[in-house]
Structures are given as structure tokens and as C-alpha cells.
């Protein structure tokens, strides 16, 4: 039984770089146990929003709550249940896969024994067990992405923020990652992801938010977005209609 506390609540979120608004007045509430896709054209403010949620950027205004904990006022508690996976995997080239997972579990204060067991399970599931004692510098882009996913999952987060998680993965690995994300959501976790592959969002996400010029211009199920845009086609058609620059 999931709590009614939203997994994520953004209130009037704002971020400026100089005089330019990267994110402007974003309000968003995502319940627990959902896979939410945040879409938008390049430079729309998706990554800035995700980085603020992950505590990497401080908002100029507004508030971010992760499972009821404010990222601004109580960052330690908020980050404890959060995993952030950027588009460029955060790995140490000179550490082995296992050493990297050991370090990450130490950062999140996980008990050593259970973390070691989880590491083994995750690496086997992701097909990296044979490479567990190799340094990350020898990994392909896809292997790095999978290891970063393992590192995100090892501290058992309740909210995962993923920026383009399928970049660099082959078809089999992409399917594996999608299945793992769905399994995570079925177990009560919440996923927020950005992607430029709209078919992925269409197939996986229960809710979709579209951000453009720093503002959340539409949010809801695919049907709700269709109704809002007046476009009856695919998510790609809806997206292009909503983000079209007026002639």
C-alpha cells in the first residue's frame, strides 16, 4: 500500500542563469509508483529541472519535495531516497565495477553485507558480472550506462531521476533497462525520465509532462495530452503540435 505523499512535488520552481530563465514557475506533483516522462525540445529546461531535483543546482525560487522532504531545507533526508542518473554516466575510470558500487553504497550509508549481495545480483542481472573486476575505463558506452544504473539502484532509492537513460544501449540492453525500470515502478518506486525517443515515453510512461522554454506547458496521460492539443495522432504528433514555434 503506497503512501499518499507524492513522490515529487515542485512548487513555483524557478532557475535563472544571468537574466535568462532556464526554468520558470514549474508546478508539478507526481504520485508514488508512477513512471513519468518529462519531454521537451533541446534547451527547454529538462536537465536543469532534474539537476535541481537531485540537489545539484539550487533553485532561485520555489520548493522541491521528495516524499515530503524538502530538497532545499533538508537535502540529506531528501537525497537519501533519491537516485540520479545523468545522460553521461557518473563513473570513476580507474575503479572496477565492484569498487564503484562499494563506494556508492558507502556514500548512501548502506550496510556492507547487503550492499555486496545487491551488487552481485545487479551486476548479474545487467550482464556485467564477468566484468565486475575490470576498471570502468575499459567499458563500452552501454556497459557504463548499465553500471551507472546498477549504482543508482544499489542504495534502494524510492525515486529515480534518469536523464536519457537509454543513450548508447543496444536493443537488448535497452529492453533490459526498460524492464528493470518497470519492475522498479511495480515495486512501488517512482521514475522520472527524460528522453528524445518519444516511442519509449509513449510505451512506458503513465504520465507525460512537456516542458518548453522553461515552463511546463502540458501534463497528463497521453489521452489527456491529445485532448489538450487537439491532435489525435502519436505522442510525436502531439509533442510537435504543443512545442511548435508559431510562424
Amino acid at each position, binding site marked *: 500500500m503506497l503512501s499518499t505523499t507524492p513522490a515529487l512535488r515542485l512548487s513555483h520552481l524557478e532557475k535563472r542563469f544571468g537574466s535568462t530563465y532556464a526554468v520558470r514557475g514549474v508546478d508539478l506533483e507526481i504520485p508514488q509508483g508512477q513512471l513519468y516522462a518529462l519531454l521537451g525540445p533541446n534547451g527547454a529546461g529538462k536537465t536543469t529541472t532534474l539537476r535541481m531535483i*537531485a*540537489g*545539484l543546482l539550487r533553485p532561485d525560487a520555489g520548493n522541491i519535495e521528495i516524499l515530503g522532504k524538502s530538497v532545499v531545507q533538508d*537535502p*540529506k*533526508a*531528501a*537525497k*537519501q531516497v*533519491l537516485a*540520479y542518473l*545523468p545522460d553521461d554516466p*557518473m*563513473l*570513476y*575510470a*580507474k*575503479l572496477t565495477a*565492484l*569498487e564503484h*558500487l*562499494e*563506494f*556508492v*553504497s*558507502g*556514500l*548512501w*550509508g548502506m*550496510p*556492507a*553485507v547487503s*550492499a*555486496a*549481495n545487491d*551488487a*552481485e545480483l545487479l551486476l548479474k542481472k545487467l550482464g556485467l*558480472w*564477468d*566484468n*565486475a*573486476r*575490470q*576498471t570502468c575505463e*575499459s567499458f563500452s558506452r552501454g556497459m557504463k550506462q548499465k553500471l551507472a544504473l546498477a*549504482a543508482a539502484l544499489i542504495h534502494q532509492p524510492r525515486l529515480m531521476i534518469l536523464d536519457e537513460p537509454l543513450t548508447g544501449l543496444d536493443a537488448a540492453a535497452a529492453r533490459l533497462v526498460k524492464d528493470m525500470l518497470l519492475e522498479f515502478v511495480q515495486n512501488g518506486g517512482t521514475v522520472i525520465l527524460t528522453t528524445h525517443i518519444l516511442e519509449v515515453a509513449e510505451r512506458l510512461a503513465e504520465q507525460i509532462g512537456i516542458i518548453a522554454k522553461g515552463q511546463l506547458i502540458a501534463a497528463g496521460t497521453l489521452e489527456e495530452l491529445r485532448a489538450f492539443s487537439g491532435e489525435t495522432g502519436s505522442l510525436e504528433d502531439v509533442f510537435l503540435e504543443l512545442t511548435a514555434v508559431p510562424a
Partner: protein
Amino acid sequence: MIWYLIRHDLRLRARELPKSWWLVPVFGVAIAVIAVVVLGFGQNRERFPVIGANTPLFLVITAVLAFAFTVMISTAIEGAVRGLFERNDLDLLSSSPAPSTAIFAARASSLATELFLGATLFLGLLPLVATYFGYWQFLGMFPALLAMSLIATAIGLLLTLVLVRSFGVRRTRIIAQVISSLVGAGVFLAFQLPNILNGGSSRNTATSFSQVFNQLSSINVNNPVFIPARATILEPIATLVFLVFAIGTLTVTVVLTQAWFVRGAQEALVVANKPIARGVQRPVRFNSGLWRVALQKEWRLILRDTTLLSRVLLQILYMVPSVFVFSRIGSNPTGAMGFQLGNLLAASAVLMVANLVMSLVRITLYAEDVPDLLASAPLQRGMMRRVKLAAALIPSFLFTSPMIIVSAINGSSGWVFATFAWLASAFSCAITMLWLARPIARAELFKPARGGEHWLSGLLQVLSMFAWLAVALGLESGAWWALVALGVGIITPLGVYLIARTRDSNLGYE
């Protein structure tokens, strides 16, 4: 095509140079020196002294050229590794319609140009000064250096290929850096030999040098070994022979080995991407606790990066002569020869711990590979900075503590002050670096243009280090300068802390 590629390569090499404000005055000084030389030559031209061919003069010139040539070869290996493997543009160029001979010749030519300009920067003043006094023949040093640059390029390229094929790109890069550092350290130590040796040994050293010189003076003046020296005084035939030989050597190297080089480069890149040992099915055991895993991670990263490690250890090597000089001053402020073991160890410990801290803090604190991972972790503010400082301080203390222990066992009366200065020196450097920290890419750590490190930081680190050195050497005797140094040593990190703590550390993680 080849000129286009040379220009492209030279532009890339120029961009690798530090963009520093001091280049403008250096350029200005160079112009001024040339102007003075031209004017001086005008005044002295009546004299036109003749330089006769004589073995002692040729020996001196040959020694200078040999030293320059050694440095050139080590620089050539580093430059060849950089030009052929680090820029990762060989695939692009090889897939273009440009012939591989032209690509390789362009790389070789730009490398030779870099060597020649570098050598001119360091040795170019000598012929200019000689010209000012009327010895215009020494302008021959420029064609001689050009010829040496071409030969060094050929040797450097060949050595690089052999090393890359034997050891791979990564190890070759390390070997090149180590060779380069050892050459520099060797020359530096050789110059400091009289300071290192005790008492009147500088006179003994001079005598030994004189004996060797006298033996070598028996070499016939027409010996071909003196061709470079003859070219340096602009003997026409020697200059021509030397230049033709150099151009021929590089041309033959390029023509005969270009295919070998391109194939070697491609193979090396493939080898570099080959996976290393497969995972071993041992039970997985993790350590617990942030401090333990974070310290372990920092030390693993240092130990596995042989390039960084070799640079750190070579910095210690450079400290050796200074240690002897300062320990002697510490034993006798009047500067008389002789030192006590206690002072020697105190100076060693203070200088080395500060240098180690400076290098290791730069690696652990500044060169964090994935700051976003740390920033997204649920850690107390400042926790990771403390762990990283500890990761730098602990090995620094462990490495240098034997000197302090031996100093105490040896019964040196000043060991208490030395211990105090040893601890203070390390912490002062660490605090100064922490509060003036700026992130640096790991690959840029030991490059001249170090990723925007605060200009004040390096200055204050050195000030702090020498202040605590003075404390270690002079506080026991109550020397006034030791008290001044104590004040400087305390005020420097305190001032930096008070000024800089009000803003973020700039590191991207807390």
C-alpha cells in the same frame, strides 16, 4: 596538402600552450633583446674577432648541445605520443583523401618546429649575447638547433613507435613523462651537485670536472664528433653537412616508416580498448562506512594513475638539493658549510610534507572525476571535503614521519619545533588550497595551464611552506626571522580561511 596539415597541426600545438598574461612581456623582452643585439653588433662590428677551431671550445659547445639534445628527445617522445595518439584525430585524417605520407610528414614537421622553438627559447639568448660582443659566428647555433630538432624528431618518433608497440599507448605516455622528468631532475641535480656534497667538495668536484675535461681535450679537433660544434660557430661546410644529414634522417624516417606508424597507431588504439582480465568469481565483500570506502577510493585512484604518481614522486626528487641548501643555512645562519642531521631532517620533513600535500590535495580535492555523484549523495555539508583532505594528509604524514622520528631519536634539540612546523606546514597548505580551490580536470593537473587554479593559491602555498621551514630551522635558537616566519605561517591560512569561507568552495560538491 602538407602545408595545410602542418598549419593545422601547429595551430593545435599552439592551443595546448598555456594562455598566460606573461607571454606578452616575454615577447616584448625578446624583441628588446634582439634590438639591443643589433645595436651592439653595429658598435662592435669593427672588431669581428675570429673564432679559431679548438678542442676545448668545441667540448664546451658539444656539452651544451648534448644536454639540449637529451631534453629534445624526451620532449619529442612526449610530443609524438600527444600528436599521434592523444588527439584522437588520426582516424579522421586517415579516412580523408590526404596521403598518409603527408599526414605523417606534417606531424613530424610540426613536432620538429615545436622542438626548435623550445630549444631557441632556452638557448637562443647565448648566440644573441655573443653577437652583441661581436662574435656573430655563434648565430650558427640556430641552424645547429634546427638540425638537432630534426634528428631528435626522427629518434623520438622511432622510439615512440617501438615503445607503443611494446607497451601500449598508455604506458608509453607514462614512460615519456618519466623520462622527461628524470632528464629534468638529472640536469637539476647535476647542477646542484656541489651544494649537495659536503664541505669543500665543490672544489673537489671542480677538480674532477677539470680532469675529465683535460682528458677529453686530447680529441682531435677534426673529429666528426665536433661537426655540430663547428656548425654552431657557422663553419659553412659543417653547417651544410649537419643540416643535410638532419633533413635526410627525418625524410628517410618519414618515408620508410610512415605506413608502420599509421598501422602502429591503429593497432595501439585497438589494444588500448581491449578488455583486461575477466571477472573473478570470488565472493564479493564490501567495506562499510563512508570514511573507509571514500579514503580507499581516493588512494586507489592515486595508485592506479601511474602518471600522477610518477609526477608526485618526481616532485620530491626535485626537493633534494633544496633540502641540503636549507639545512646548511639552518646549521649556521652565516652560510658556512656543514649541516647537522637534525636540521637536514627538519628541512626535509617540512619541505616534503608541504609538497606532498600540495600535489595530493590537487589530485584528491580539485580533480574529482564525478562531482555530481558526490553532490547528489546524502552527506553532511563539508563531509566529502574533510575526507578528501584526510586522503591527502595521511599519506603525506606517513611518508615523511620517519624523518621526524629519526630526528627525535638522533637527539636533535630542535625536533619539537621541527615536528610543530611539519604538522603546521601540512595543515597550512591544505587549508589554503581548500579555500582557494577550483576544480581541475585530472588530465590537466600537471600541465602548465592548470585548469584555472587560483593564482593566489600557489603563491600562498609556497609562502606558507617556506615560513614553516624557517620556523623549523630557526625557532629553537630564537632567531628573529623565525618569529616573523611563525607569524606569516599562522596568518596565511587564517587569512585565506576568513576571506574565502563566506563563499562556496567552487568544487561542485560539498
